């Protein structure tokens, strides 16, 4: 029971938070497309991409079940780890002020400027393809996260999918209510937290697939979370010191 909760809770939370970040990015561009080129193309493009993604899940989910669990754990664990480490390093550099924070308002303004002009009557192909592309890209990331988070054990796919669907529902409701970018979500903090979870799960699944006997069994997941958090905070401190030292020199 304890082991079940130890996996279910973090899987659901990580899938929800990671999907929230991806869906907010997609929503920002879709809103810009809708406001600039018309809502028919924006909604049809996004809807079409969601349909393709749904079919992908239906095909890939059962196909993964046919592959030996150890191989799935190692391959998806590696991808999860590479994604998590990339997120965590970027979040640490943003926290330290080395690279600028993501700004959804600026992305919205940039997208509107690049899409401005040329919208005619009827279905706009530029709106359709832009909305399709951004929804597919961000949606593929979500599908990967769901499959990877759910790959460690056969029963984890549903909590991961539930987390992602909950994030989609939250973002769709926010988008419908606001009709403008969701700028208040602290994206860097979310990426920091999710990066820690992705790194912990990724390395845990690689070890499980590779035959590592984790000290304390599944409880070592908590140690990994804490360890990656400490390493990332240390990276923030180090990057901050380097930035401040460079500013003093200049």
């Amino acid at each position, binding site marked *: 029971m304890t082991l079940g909760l130890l996996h279910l809770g973090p899987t659901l939370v990580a899938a929800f938070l990671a999907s929230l970040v991806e869906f907010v990015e997609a929503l920002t561009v879709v809103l810009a497309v809708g406001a600039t080129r018309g809502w028919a193309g924006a909604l049809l493009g996004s809807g079409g991409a969601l349909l393709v993604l749904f079919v992908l899940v239906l095909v890939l989910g059962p196909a993964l079940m046919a592959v030996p669990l150890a191989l799935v754990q*190692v391959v998806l*664990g*590696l*991808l999860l*780890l*590479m*994604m998590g*480490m*990339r997120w*965590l*390093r970027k979040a*640490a*550099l943003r926290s*330290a002020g*080395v*690279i600028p924070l993501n700004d959804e308002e600026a992305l919205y303004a940039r997208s509107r400027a690049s899409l401005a002009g040329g919208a005619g009557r009827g279905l706009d192909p530029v709106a359709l*393809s832009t909305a399709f*592309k951004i929804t*597919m*890209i961000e949606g*593929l*990331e979500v599908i*990967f996260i769901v499959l990877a988070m759910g790959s460690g054990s056969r029963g984890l796919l549903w909590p991961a999918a539930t987390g992602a669907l909950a994030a989609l529902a939250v973002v769709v409701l926010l988008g419908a209510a606001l009709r403008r970018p969701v700028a208040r979500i602290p994206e860097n903090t979310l990426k920091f937290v999710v990066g820690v979870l992705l*790194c912990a799960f990724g*390395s845990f699944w*690689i*070890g499980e*697939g*590779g*035959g*590592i*006997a*984790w*000290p304390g069994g599944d409880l*070592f997941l908590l*140690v*990994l979370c804490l*360890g*990656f958090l*400490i*390493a*990332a905070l*240390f*990276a*923030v401190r*180090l*990057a901050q010191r*380097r*930035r401040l*030292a*460079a500013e003093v020199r200049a």
Partner: protein
Amino acid sequence: MSGHLVAILRGMGAEVWSVFVDDGLFAGAILSWALLAGVVLPQCSPPRWLPGPLLFAGLAVILVAGAWRACRKRGF
């Protein structure tokens, strides 16, 4: 039309790739260490307690070194 579709698909492929790799050396170090400590080492009959903490320790070092290197690349 097909050229436009190919350009869209190529762009999507590049964006999906960048989800995992934005710095070749950083990604290569993660991949190499994870395979070495997480898959190869456990097959060599080391002490049972060793591979897990070793896998984590190496990844933590790669993360900190990656942040350090990124600072240097940006002139800090």
